[in-house]
């Protein structure tokens, strides 16, 4: 089964460049602005959109993404409304892959089978669920694959060669290499250690490898994108969004542009990267 993710990475490979993957939180700072933001992302140069599913207890996220999730929850965001948001986006864009990223509990409570059906129907292509390692594949990974959704796994600096095959076994779409041990928004990894890690992962898989955590500037993005099939930016975009809000945390006339402008600058960084030979 070919998903929009597979198609997008095939196109990028042909074009000889890395993917620019953006992360924003669904419903942050409110559902209507959030829809405008995700619509603006591809126009500003995003190749893949990761959409955070708000959760009260995001154990692997730093303060920026925690706050983004809480802003969304405060205005009543739910998993169902996240799916609505994607449905709204799909009205004008049927090509940009959308990956939902978050934690398992809201999906478990929604009901796994119902969720997979509704997500597929809404136009979602893949899932990244932080607290579902391969040891828990029965929960969602295997059912998701059956439902035609990519289950994108995180590989980390603690995932050694012995463990990598287990991590990659049921992974599809791409592999997300978490460049540091730590939470989102922490310090950046240096390009040489990333390059080493990507090479190591590629010995075990033909899937594209995207790298995230700690990429904030067009220069970071360029450096990482020269060693990987994609660079993921989240916290920096969310910080730009937050800085555009009014004192009560509400969207202003600047909010959508603030995210779009940084996206465009980062996209330039990614596009300036020399793709390492495969």
């Amino acid at each position: 089964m070919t998903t929009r993710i597979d198609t997008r990475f095939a196109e990028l490979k042909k074009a000889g460049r890395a993917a620019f993957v953006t992360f924003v939180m669904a419903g942050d700072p409110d559902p209507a602005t959030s829809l405008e933001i995700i619509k603006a992302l591809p126009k500003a140069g995003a190749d893949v959109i990761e959409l955070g599913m708000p959760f009260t207890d995001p154990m692997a996220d730093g303060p920026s993404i925690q706050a983004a999730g809480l802003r969304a929850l405060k205005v009543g965001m739910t998993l169902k409304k996240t799916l609505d948001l994607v449905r709204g986006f799909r009205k004008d864009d049927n090509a940009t892959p959308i990956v939902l990223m978050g934690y398992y509990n809201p999906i478990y409570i929604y009901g796994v089978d119902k969720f997979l059906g509704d997500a597929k129907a809404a136009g979602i292509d893949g899932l990244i669920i932080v607290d579902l390692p391969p040891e828990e594949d029965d929960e969602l990974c295997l059912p998701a694959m059956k439902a035609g959704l990519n289950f994108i796994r995180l590989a980390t600096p603690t995932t050694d060669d012995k463990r990598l095959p287990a991590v990659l076994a049921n992974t599809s779409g791409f592999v997300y290499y978490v460049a540091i041990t730590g939470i989102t928004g922490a310090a950046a990894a240096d390009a040489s250690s990333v390059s080493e890690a990507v090479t190591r992962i590629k010995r075990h898989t033909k899937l594209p490898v995207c790298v995230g955590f700690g990429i904030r500037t067009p220069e970071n993005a360029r450096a990482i994108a020269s060693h990987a099939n994609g660079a993921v930016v989240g916290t920096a975009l969310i910080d730009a969004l937050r800085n555009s809000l009014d004192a009560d945390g509400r969207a202003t006339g600047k909010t959508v542009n603030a995210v779009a402008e940084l996206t465009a600058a980062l996209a330039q960084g990614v596009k300036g990267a020399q793709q390492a030979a495969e």
Partner: protein
Amino acid sequence: MNSVKPNSYRSGPDERGHFGIFGGRFVAETLMPLILDLEKAYTEAKADPAFQSEMNGYLKNYVGRPSPLYFAERLTEHLGGAKIYLKREELNHTGSHKVNNVLGQIMLARRMGKKRIIAETGAGQHGVATATLCARFGLDCVVYMGAVDVERQQPNVIRMEMLGAKVIPVQSGTRTLKDAMNEALRDWVTNVHDTFYCIGTVAGPHPYPTLVRDFQSIIGNETKAQMQEIEGRLPDSLVACIGGGSNAMGLFHPFLDDSTVEIFGVEAAGHGLTQLHAASIAGGRPGVLHGNRTYLLMDADGQIQDAHSISAGLDYPGIGPEHSWLHEIGRVNYLSATDDEALAAFQLLSKLEGIIPALEPAHAIAKVMELAPKRAKDHLMVVNLSGRGDKDVPQVGDILRGKSK
């Protein structure tokens, strides 16, 4: 209640850490290799007689075990029913049962060559126990504590600092135990190479619920032997309070297969079960948080709800996974006590027995006040007095003088 009974209630978890549908290993990939290492180290340590004998030495001479099983004569008379025994965990060094588990985990950390210890704490008892053993063994210690709890459990914050630990007030989320646990997990994910996460209750990803239970089972094992010596038989019932459930599991587990023993866990009903509370079994349903599937307080969207209890140590929206299983299978009865009931029990025990309990086990005493009068005079009831009330004296003093609520 399930109609199919297992051959034994004590055989869990399975190799993937499941008690029925509960438990598991719901953690970020970064942590997965660490919990696999921990499981391996624990399995090896369990099989090593030197580990057990070293631990026994510290349990006896440092912790002060065995803790007495004390016949609470005046409480028994006052309630006019069951014969009530208190398992005196509050007499342990550091003032609660938490030290039993911390000793085990710190010895494991030493075996694993880890030099930096992190912990979450609610009431501060687990934090104090961790800070104490880190001082004893020369390890770095960082304790995460919700900012609300830092405020209401000041004596323990001061103790931890005196013991050389760094206490980090957690400002995120509801600023209580659940957020302290989130923050400890964030630290662990960041400092994987040198850090050991010392979890304070029977929750978290496998193997924590099992290893904490095993280290706490000394409570039940001693109780069994002591009751045999005093009364020549098994107790008829056991009562313990439940935050995550470690003092309860420690008392209950050795008795699970003794079918004549009635077992009661007491959750915190806060302002009442229809208002803010911390009773995950009474008011929650199965979900996934902090590495395991278990009963949780949450809304229709699966967002975790604020818990409330007067007692910082019970103020948690979840419960250990083995308790969730024991509830579903019907082996343990889960009750709940409100803030006001706990306060009344706190005062009653202080006045009748000269023992000021912590607010956490005051919840267990509150249910003893209901259960004991309905039992015959030869009914033997054991309550786990999991901790002493010194830490709560300022907070309860303020409440009783009408200064705060």
